[in-house]
C-alpha cells in the first residue's frame, strides 16, 4: 500500500517534559498502587489536580531513578465532573465518552466477565480518576500515597474509592517479570518515532526489506501524524489533546488452580510434554523464549538478548508448526502472519503496561481460584476503537482473521467451557497436532474503564478552568 500522497516525516520531535512518563515508558518498578478516585466539588477538584501536577512524573530522561512516580488519568465522567466545557467534552471519541462498561457487547465482556461480576467500585460509575504510584520500595510507595491522600483531604477535591495494589512477583527475594500462570511477561512493546529508545528488532513495524522501524508517533500520542499520515481523532482544543493519549485499564482475575489443573490434564495426552504445551498456549516458553525462535526447548540466551527476544516473524511458519496460529502472542500481535509485510497490523498496535496483583503461589503448592490474584492490564493507544477494541474483539475473542473460526484466545478468551484451541503439528512425535477442548475460564474480568492521559499542559489548563474549545 505505497501511497506517495502520504507524507512521512522522520524528524518527529516530541516534548518529553510535557508527556506523562507512563505514556512513554514502562518504569519497571516492583511496587505499584492504582488509586481510583471520585472527584468532588469541581472547584476543589481543579485545585486538587493543580496540586498533583507538581508531583507528576514526565517522560524526561532520568539522571537518577526516582524512588516513586506519580501519574494521572481521567474517565470521561471525571472530565464532566471537572466541568470541562461541553464543546470539549463532546469532542472526545464516542467509545471514550461511553466508557468500557457500555462497550461490553463489543468487547465480549459478557457472562462471567460482565459488569455485574466486577468489583463494587465500578458499580456506581463514580470512578473519575486513575492516580498511579510506582515505587522502588514499599516504604516509598506508602510515603507517596500518603502525600496524595493528604492532598485530597487538604483540597477536598477528591475521595479515594479503591486502592489497587500491584507489583512484580518476587521469587527468591528478587523481583521478576513473571505473572501468576508462570510465564515471563512484558517483552514486546511497539517502538514509535520520537521515543527515547532506538527501534529494537521485532518491535515497531516491519519494513519491506525485513528490518524493523519505529511506528508513527500518532499511533500512541495525540497531536502527531499516525500511520495514515493524518492526525488521530482527538478532542478540541488541540492543546487539550496534544501529548495526551488514551488508556484502557482492566483488572483480570486469574484462576490459577484451573489453569494448572487444565495444563496438567491436557499434557498427559500431549506427547511434546507439559512445558512445550504451555509454550504452545502463549507462543513463549514459560521462561520467555519465543517458541518461534526455539521450538524445541527454552533458550535463556535468547531471553536475555533484547535484539533477539522479540525479533521474529511468522512468515515462514504460516501453518503454525512452531508457534500455533492461535497462540496468545500471535493473536495479540500477528506481525506478518496476514501477509503484506505486516502492514495489516500497524494500525492495531497497543502499548502494554501492567503488573500482577495478589500473592504468587509457586508450582506444586496448593492454590485456589477464589484467592485474589491476577493482573492489572493497562494499554495505551491513540484510538481505543481502532487499536485496543479491535484487537480485543477480532483477534482475542474471535478467530476469523487467523482462520481459526470461532476459536478465542486460550488464556484470556471468554470461554465458558466451550472453547477449543488447536496446536498445529506434524508427524514428528515431539510436535504432534493437538486439540485442547472444553476450555474453562482461565481469566475473569473484575472491572476497568477507559481513561484519558492528558499532557502536563492540558492538566494545567484543566486545573485552572481554562480549557477553551472556541
Amino acid at each position: 500500500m505505497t501511497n506517495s500522497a502520504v507524507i512521512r516525516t522522520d524528524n518527529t520531535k516530541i516534548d518529553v517534559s510535557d508527556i506523562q512518563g507512563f505514556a512513554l515508558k514502562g518504569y519497571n518498578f516492583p511496587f505499584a498502587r492504582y488509586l481510583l478516585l471520585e472527584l468532588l466539588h469541581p472547584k476543589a477538584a481543579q485545585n486538587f489536580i493543580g496540586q498533583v501536577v507538581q508531583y507528576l512524573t514526565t517522560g524526561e530522561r532520568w539522571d537518577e531513578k526516582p524512588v516513586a512516580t506519580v501519574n494521572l488519568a481521567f474517565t470521561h465522567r471525571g472530565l464532566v465532573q471537572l466541568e470541562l466545557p461541553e464543546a470539549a467534552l463532546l469532542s472526545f471519541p464516542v467509545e471514550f465518552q461511553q466508557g468500557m462498561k457500555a462497550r461490553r457487547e463489543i468487547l465480549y465482556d459478557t457472562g462471567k466477565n460482565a459488569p455485574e461480576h466486577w468489583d463494587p467500585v465500578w458499580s456506581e460509575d463514580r470512578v473519575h480518576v486513575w492516580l498511579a504510584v510506582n515505587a522502588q520500595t514499599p516504604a516509598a510507595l506508602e510515603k507517596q500515597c500518603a502525600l496524595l491522600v493528604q492532598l485530597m483531604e487538604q483540597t477536598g477535591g477528591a475521595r479515594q474509592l479503591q486502592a489497587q495494589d500491584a507489583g512484580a512477583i518476587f521469587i527468591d527475594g528478587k523481583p521478576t517479570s513473571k505473572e501468576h500462570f508462570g510465564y515471563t511477561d512484558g517483552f514486546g512493546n511497539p517502538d514509535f518515532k520520537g521515543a527515547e529508545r532506538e527501534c529494537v528488532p521485532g518491535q515497531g513495524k516491519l519494513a519491506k526489506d525485513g528490518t524493523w522501524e519505529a511506528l508513527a508517533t500518532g499511533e500512541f500520542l495525540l497531536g502527531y501524524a499516525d500511520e495514515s499520515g493524518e492526525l488521530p481523532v482527538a478532542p478540541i482544543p488541540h492543546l487539550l489533546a496534544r501529548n495526551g493519549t488514551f488508556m484502557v485499564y482492566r483488572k483480570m482475575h486469574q484462576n490459577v488452580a484451573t489453569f494448572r489443573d487444565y495444563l496438567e490434564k491436557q499434557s498427559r495426552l500431549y506427547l511434546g510434554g507439559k512445558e512445550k504445551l504451555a509454550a504452545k498456549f502463549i507462543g513463549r516458553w514459560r521462561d520467555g523464549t519465543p517458541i518461534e525462535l526455539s521450538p524445541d526447548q527454552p533458550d535463556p540466551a535468547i531471553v536475555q538478548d533484547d535484539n533477539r527476544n522479540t525479533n521474529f516473524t511468522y512468515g515462514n511458519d504460516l501453518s503454525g508448526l512452531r508457534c500455533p496460529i492461535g497462540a496468545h502472542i500471535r493473536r495479540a500481535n500477528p506481525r506478518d502472519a496476514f501477509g503484506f509485510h505486516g502492514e495489516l497490523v500497524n494500525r492495531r498496535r497497543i502499548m502494554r503496561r501492567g503488573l500482577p496483583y495478589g500473592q504468587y503461589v509457586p508450582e506444586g503448592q496448593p492454590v485456589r481460584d477464589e484467592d485474589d490474584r491476577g493482573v492489572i492490564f493497562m494499554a495505551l493507544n491513540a484510538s481505543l476503537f481502532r487499536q485496543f477494541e479491535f484487537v480485543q474483539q477480532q483477534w482475542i475473542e474471535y478467530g476469523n482473521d487467523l482462520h481459526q473460526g470461532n476459536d478465542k484466545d486460550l488464556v484470556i478468551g471468554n470461554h465458558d467451557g466451550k472453547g477449543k484451541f488447536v496446536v498445529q503439528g506434524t508427524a514428528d512425535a515431539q510436535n504432534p497436532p493437538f486439540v485442547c477442548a472444553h476450555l474453562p475460564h482461565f481469566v475473569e474480568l473484575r472491572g476497568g474503564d477507559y481513561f484519558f492521559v492528558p499532557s502536563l499542559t492540558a492538566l494545567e489548563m484543566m486545573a485552572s478552568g481554562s480549557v477553551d474549545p472556541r
Partner: protein
Amino acid sequence: MANQSGQVYGLTILSPIVENERIDICHATELRWYLASLPRDHTSPFARVSSTHLARLVVMDDVVFVGAPAHEEHLKSRYLVFETNFDGDLDTYLTRMAREIPEVVESVWKHCVGYPGVADPAGFVAYMKKCQIATTFFFADVNDKTVQQNLRALQVQSALAHFIEKNQGEPAAEIQKSFGVLLERLAKAPAPLPGGDDSEETSAEDRPHD
C-alpha cells in the same frame, strides 16, 4: 467478467420504485416495512436459495449530497438496491429465486416499476437483467468455494476437531479404527443446511461420532 470473482457471482440490481402521489403510504415506505420484517438469521428466505453466500436489499432514496462547492444531484427515482453473492450463473440463480421464494420476490418487487410478476420465471429473469448494472469491483469475503463446499468443509473441520479431542492419546490402531468410522459417518451425513446455524457447535451433524 466484471461481475465475477473466481466462481462467485456479484450481482447488483437497481430497480426503480413506483412513485404514486395519490396513495397514502408510498411504495418505498411499504417496502422498507416489509424488508425490516424479513429474518436475517438462518431462517432468511435467501437461505432457501441455497447457492447464496450473502444478500442485501436496501431502499435508496437519492444520492447523498457531499462537499463544496454546492453541486446538487438527484436520482431520477428511488431505487431498490439488491446485491447478492452466489455460486453459478445468473439465469439459474434468478430462476431459483422465482421458483423457490416467489412470495418474497412478489412482496419486494411488486413495489418496483415494470415488475412483470413471478408466475413466469423467464419474464422475471429478463426483467431483473434489464435492471442489472455491472458490479465492476466487489469484495467477496469468501474463498473460491461454493456455499455447499464451505458448509461441508466446516462440518468436516468441526468433526475432525471433536474427533482429535476425543481420541488423542489412544493407541494408534484404535484411532485408525475410529477414524474409519468417522469417515464413514461423514460420508453418510447430510450436508449442513445453508444460512448458518445459530446453535453453533452443538448441532448433531457436527458430531457424527457422538
